[in-house]
């Protein structure tokens, strides 16, 4: 292992430890208590300090040392946890996390809260503890430990085991006596037989196995025995008999009783400890490769399916049922592989708790941060890319959304503002909401500001939604005075761009005086999609099922013309505007003689009816990006490869709605949304 890869491991491990730390602190804050909890918190800080020292991160180690000292006092019941202590140790976790980040980024910056939190910690630590990095700790006399040498000729082996053959062992004609002579050829062996399990004659199954053999050896090891008896694998159990060795003078030590009479169950020896979260670190490129290959497998499976389907075999033929197994297995693998990349948003949300605390501190506001749905899983790559947009949006919520304590009192609100961060799944998407109970958007001010900046013409008449969306325009900033928190030159337009690049959207809901909610709607995963295969203008295309409400073939009289190129369909009493998909995509489509209509739901335009030439199939497709080798195509989100190896484009329903609105080929949508 090279030093770099160790360092990489260190930072990955720190991330886990900081997660465990904020987890523990969260549980403390929620009123839980107990030695285990405090111990876990202590251990997280201690481990960061320990490994940090090895890499010479002095700032990190010296802060962790003070932090750990305070936690140790709490652990030893020398310091009781009150609200203030809890606040300090929670802030300390933030500072520690920031120090780790600094170390990782090789930044020299000092966390702004470092000095303050450190002195608060030192207050609780009693005396200011010495930095432990170079000088030996002053906590105890110089190492008062006399090394004890030991005999290297210690037998490296030997022990006592219980050998329990099962009934099959005897049924297969094996004979314990032969087995033991086999072992004697390898090492020294003493054998005794335990008859305790043998039932009385009336309960005896003549084919059963009741004898237990105890074997003792001075030079065999378990591995050697298992190896020698390889040919019997599965026919016997071998378990170590733990002996008690009396250790003098340990009565005063809390010790676990070890019983010599009851043999340990066979599995004790290799039982894995219950660890809170065992993880495997894998190079993401390998996972990507796996996901791609599995994608190919799914395509290959459908190619074979199609070919075999064309053979006209009988329904119950062996080939078809084998093919069905193949399909099932391929799906299983696909699901398993996809779940490798799925990750709960929890660590991200924990980082955001830090962001909110810092923002509250910087603005002097009282903010309660409420998180829900932190177990919601999304693609790992999305988790990482969400950090910056969320940070910005949460800072905004605290800075611009939540009022000052005085301001809240004036509006008759509770002094503590609430910022909520939640994640949940909704119809094939992940939704992340950032909401506050602050003052809401002031649309008059926003519009005036946009006009003042020349972003919209003076006589513009905008809908409420359009005004809200002005926030996302480049060059827009609402803060009357630039605060040191949000006014860092990053606008909401950057947020929107970041979300869009992930295939997501942002929407705003606000009520003046009551608060604002930003919703980020993201695709569940970047790799697979349930789609409906349709034909449009002699092309095969895929519509994501997630956006489809239903497919209809209306009676001719229900399709009504409202303009030269504009149709609506009467669906259960309401008119739904029609968008010709081929036309919206710019394909010269011959007149559709008998189109099928697919009702889709869009964020910006509500329900639309997309007209297509025909519907072929409904299936899961593997998403292939077009951007890498080509670029962005309006109205198309990606491509996929169909069973025959041909490429089909995947339609971006939301973008189609916007294209239709902007080109006027569809319904008049000027009241709805701004085309970005």
């Amino acid at each position, binding site marked *: 292992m090279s030093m770099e*890869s160790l360092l990489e491991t260190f930072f990955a491990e720190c991330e886990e430890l900081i997660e465990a730390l904020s987890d523990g602190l969260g549980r403390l804050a929620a009123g839980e208590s107990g030695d285990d909890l405090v111990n876990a918190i202590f251990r997280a800080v201690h*481990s960061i300090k320990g490994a940090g020292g090895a890499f010479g991160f002095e700032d990190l180690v010296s802060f962790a040392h003070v932090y750990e000292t305070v936690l140790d006092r709490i652990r030893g019941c020398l310091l009781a946890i009150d609200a203030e202590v809890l606040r300090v140790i929670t802030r300390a976790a933030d500072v520690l996390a920031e120090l780790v980040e600094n170390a990782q980024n090789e930044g020299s910056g000092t966390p702004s809260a470092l000095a303050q939190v450190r002195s608060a910690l030192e207050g609780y630590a009693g005396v200011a503890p010495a930095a432990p990095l170079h000088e030996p700790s002053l906590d105890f006399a110089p*190492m008062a*430990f006399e090394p004890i040498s030991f005999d290297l000729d210690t037998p490296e082996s030997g022990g006592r085991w219980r050998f329990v053959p099962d009934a099959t062992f005897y049924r297969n004609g094996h004979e314990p006596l032969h087995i033991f002579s086999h072992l004697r050829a390898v090492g020294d062996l003493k054998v005794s037989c335990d008859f305790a399990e043998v039932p009385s004659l009336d309960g005896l199954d003549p084919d059963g196995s009741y004898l237990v053999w105890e074997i003792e050896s001075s030079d065999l090891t378990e591995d050697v025995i298992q190896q020698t008896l390889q040919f019997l694998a599965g026919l016997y159990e071998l378990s170590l008999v733990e002996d008690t060795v009396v250790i003098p003078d340990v009565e005063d030590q809390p010790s676990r009783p070890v019983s010599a009479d009851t043999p340990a169950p066979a599995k004790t020896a290799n039982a894995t*400890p219950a660890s809170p979260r065992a993880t495997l670190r894998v190079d993401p490129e390998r996972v990507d490769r796996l996901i791609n290959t599995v994608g190919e497998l799914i395509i290959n499976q459908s190619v074979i399916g199609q070919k075999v389907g064309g053979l006209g075999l009988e329904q119950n033929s062996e080939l078809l049922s084998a093919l069905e197994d193949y399909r099932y297995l391929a799906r299983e693998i696909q699901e398993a592989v996809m779940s490798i990349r799925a990750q709960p948003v929890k660590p991200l949300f924990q980082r955001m708790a830090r962001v909110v605390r810092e923002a509250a501190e910087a603005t002097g506001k009282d903010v309660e941060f409420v998180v829900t749905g932190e177990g919601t899983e999304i693609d790992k790559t999305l988790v990482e890319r969400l950090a910056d947009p969320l940070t910005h949006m949460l800072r905004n919520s605290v800075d611009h959304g939540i009022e000052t304590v005085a301001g809240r009192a004036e509006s008759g609100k509770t002094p503590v503002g609430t910022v909520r961060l939640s994640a949940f799944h909704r119809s094939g998407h992940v939704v992340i909401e950032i909401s506050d109970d602050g003052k809401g958007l002031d649309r008059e001010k926003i519009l005036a500001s946009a006009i003042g900046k020349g972003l919209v013409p003076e006589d513009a008449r905008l809908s409420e939604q359009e005004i809200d969306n002005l926030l996302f325009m480049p060059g827009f900033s609402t803060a009357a005075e630039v605060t040191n928190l949000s006014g860092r030159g990053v606008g909401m337009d950057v947020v929107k761009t970041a979300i869009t690049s992930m295939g997501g959207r942002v929407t705003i809901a606000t009520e003046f005086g009551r608060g604002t909610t930003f919703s980020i709607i993201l695709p569940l995963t970047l790799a697979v999609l349930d789609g409906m295969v349709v034909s449009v203008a002699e092309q095969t295309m895929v519509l994501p099922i997630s956006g489809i409400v239903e497919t209809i073939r209306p009676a001719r009289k229900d399709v009504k013309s409202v303009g030269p190129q504009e149709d609506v369909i009467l669906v259960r009493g309401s008119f739904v505007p029609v968008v010709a998909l081929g036309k919206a995509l710019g394909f010269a489509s011959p007149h559709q003689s008998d189109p099928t209509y697919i009702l889709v739901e869009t964020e910006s335009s509500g329900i639309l009816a997309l007209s297509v030439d025909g519907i072929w199939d409904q299936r899961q497709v593997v998403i292939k990006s077009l951007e890498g080798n080509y670029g962005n195509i309006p109205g198309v989100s990606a491509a996929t490869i169909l069973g025959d190896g041909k490429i089909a484009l995947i339609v971006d329903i939301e973008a189609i709605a916007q294209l239709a609105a902007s080109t006027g080929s569809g319904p008049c949508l000027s009241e709805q949304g701004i085309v970005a």
Partner: protein
Amino acid sequence: MSLKEKLKVMIVDDMSVSRGLLFQALEEIGMKNILSSKSGEEAFGLLTRSPAHLVISDYNMPGMSGLDLLEKLRRNSGTAKMGFMLVTGTPTPEVLERGRKLGLNNLVRKPFTSDSLKTSIEAVVGRV
């Protein structure tokens, strides 16, 4: 075969970084026969099946601590005589006392270097 090539060492630490650092240092010293495990429970299981000459264990681990592991090893006849070194940053008098009673062979102070580790090992097995 020289001693350092013969010596079979088991590293026990819950942090993979620390395992890596110990591994690196031991390799630098010239050890060839190094095993590692990530908890006392796992180490005990491995050591009962295939013993080592020397165990180098972290003190602070979730579940079974380094000293708990030492006690368990000492109480089991097949593993009772193994060499055992405890890795710790700031050993408290209680830790030292319990270690002494359990026949702890030596301490390794954190942070360690391959030289300091070598010194600690040589203090108990002789020149490697």
